[in-house]
């Protein structure tokens, strides 16, 4: 019982504190800087979208405004069976060079990406979602990293904005900052364990078709690049902007999807678990697998603590009870301040 308790505690602490600490030490002793340079390849911005009639115009305008030679920039929208007329909103931009791949069937994002990649001409492909926007120099910042032949992919920084259009200070924002801090250190040591779907770029030749049921295209593609012997790095200078989720419950839905994708990843790419096949095995184990294990370890920690009473165990159980009591109280605070899930920050702003 005691062994299970202490083992669970040590692993939970390692995942959230020990691993970042080890990474920061590794950054000091084994840092691998990216050899950035003046590099101006042809670029395709690939936007996969389903029903995005209201947002796609803003997204395309943002792409047309970016600081990159128009002759070298292909803007390609791959539509996955839209039913709200998104295709008509995209057609309006055909005269300005925007291209479209239109699938009438709603198959899923991976199929839309596969179809888009078959039409992409750029040496580098930048993946983007319809919801976010890029900073003016985002493309230049991304491709500068690809001047380094060791680098196969680059991930930009996603900034979550609150209703005042400044970077959010909510818990979701805090969690996201913590994630980005870990990612930047992983990048300095070798590679990220996955990218941000909102903004990442790869060399086109490194892409291979995704299975249609893939949940995390932004993890599968970068991991394939790592397996191909290249690095996937993080550049905080290339920014994408998005609205923060309206409430923790909305973030919960997003998180369930991401974590289900992590389980799927283990089935799709079992060699992630083989140390000699996976160049970022330690990062994967600590960052991805660790996060999947923590909830079960927390349950084990609580249950074993109930049976271990006395001395330090009593204090630890009281601490755990307080933590979960505060969590339940936080739930009631959250549902008192809840915003209807269908109302996004953008919609609130418009209403105001």
């Amino acid at each position, binding site marked *: 019982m005691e062994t299970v308790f202490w083992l669970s505690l040590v692993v939970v602490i390692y995942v959230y504190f020990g691993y970042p600490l080890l990474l920061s030490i590794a950054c000091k002793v084994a840092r691998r800087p990216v050899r950035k340079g003046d590099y101006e390849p042809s670029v395709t911005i690939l936007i996969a979208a389903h029903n995005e009639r209201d947002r796609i115009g803003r997204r395309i305008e943002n792409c047309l405004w970016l600081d990159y030679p128009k002759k070298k920039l292909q803007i390609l929208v791959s539509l996955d069976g839209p039913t709200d007329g998104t295709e008509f909103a995209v057609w309006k931009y055909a005269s300005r060079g925007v291209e479209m791949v239109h699938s009438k069937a709603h198959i899923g994002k991976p199929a839309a990406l596969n179809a888009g990649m078959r039409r992409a001409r750029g040496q580098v492909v930048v993946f983007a979602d319809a919801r976010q926007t890029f900073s003016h120099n985002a493309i230049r910042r991304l491709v500068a990293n690809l001047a380094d032949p060791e680098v196969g992919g680059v991930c930009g920084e996603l900034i979550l904005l609150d209703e005042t259009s400044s970077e959010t200070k909510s*818990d979701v924002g805090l969690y996201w900052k913590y994630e980005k801090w870990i990612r930047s250190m992983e990048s300095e040591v070798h590679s990220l364990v996955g990218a941000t779907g909102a903004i990442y770029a790869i060399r086109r030749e490194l892409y291979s078709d995704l299975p249609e049921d893939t949940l995390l295209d932004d993890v599968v593609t970068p991991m394939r690049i790592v397996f191909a012997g290249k690095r996937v790095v993080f550049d905080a200078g290339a920014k994408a902007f998005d609205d923060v989720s309206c409430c923790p419950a909305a973030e919960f839905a997003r998180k*369930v999807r991401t974590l289900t994708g992590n*389980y799927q990843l283990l089935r799709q790419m079992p060699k992630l678990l083989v140390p000699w096949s996976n160049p970022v095995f330690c990062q994967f184990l600590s960052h991805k697998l660790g996060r999947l294990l923590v909830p079960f370890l927390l349950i084990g920690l609580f249950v074993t603590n109930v049976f271990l009473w006395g001395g330090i165990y009593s204090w630890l159980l009281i601490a755990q009870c307080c933590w979960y009591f505060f969590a339940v109280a936080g739930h009631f605070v959250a549902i008192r301040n809840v915003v209807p899930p269908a109302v996004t920050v953008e919609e609130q702003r418009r209403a105001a």
Partner: protein
Amino acid sequence: MKRAFSLPYSFVLMNWAAVVAFYYFVSGRKDVWFRGKLAHSHKSPRRMSH
């Protein structure tokens, strides 16, 4: 003061998400792919059905 409640709540919610994700994965639910469906039914994931 508000953070004293919201931080443990967010932490527990995120970990509960991993448990729900495990259930979705082992039960082979496909609707998790469709972002819209999940986002609109996040209040009660159990109501999601084919």
